[in-house]
């Protein structure tokens, strides 16, 4: 994901701002990391450049 995404994404649970923690990045993209809600503290993973902002209950119910 590009860092400019931070302007438009919010925590899906309480719509508060997210903080970006980068684990691995390229020149223009974050490949691995997490987005953490500044209010409720819920953590959303970024894997292979894709942020997973599904609410926790949908993350666990997903079909294979």
């Amino acid at each position, binding site marked *: 994901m590009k860092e400019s995404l931070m302007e438009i994404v919010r*925590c899906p649970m309480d719509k508060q701002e997210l903080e970006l923690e980068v684990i691995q990045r390229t020149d223009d993209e974050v490949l691995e990391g997490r987005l953490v809600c500044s209010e409720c503290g819920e953590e959303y993973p970024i894997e292979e450049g894709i942020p997973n902002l599904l609410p926790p209950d949908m993350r666990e119910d997903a079909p294979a």
Partner: protein
Amino acid sequence: MGLDERREREKVYQPAEDSHLLATAARDEAAPTDRTLDVGTGSGYVATAMAETGATVYGVDPNPHACRQARESGIRVVQGDLTEPFGDGVFDLVTFNPPYLPTTPEEAVDDWMEVALAGGESGRAVIEPFLAGVGRVLTPEGRVLMLVSSLSGFDTVVELANEAGFTATTVDQDSFPFETLSILRLDHE
């Protein structure tokens, strides 16, 4: 196409007549200055059509396989549920080709293609929360283009859109042996 890629594509809804109708309307509607969101972006087909106009296009899908495929097509993608992971008033245009096939609980199978196609017993199980939530992420002049099939009850979908505070206009339509597909444009009242 390699075997892995083929297996991956089998888990993602691939473009069909409905995708083409929505992509055409979206390409006509999007402006280069627009920030747009394609909900349930799947393969990224509609999103890619909008991006041709110069618009800044985002895609969202709950399916991780769809997210990977859309990302490979160059779409800025978020794995998420409808418009839930986005802030207020951030999109000028939202497009949506919903899962709309009426499905009984007995028919339900738990896989990603089912999620892409099935709309519950009414065909509106995903359309309803979409209409209830999309207004929040639109700018004041923001608009929605969504595909509506006669199978999921066109008039009822228009009523739900009105209840959510939108005026609805049909901008395109095409008939097939088992359904009529319409492109509905929604504007804030």
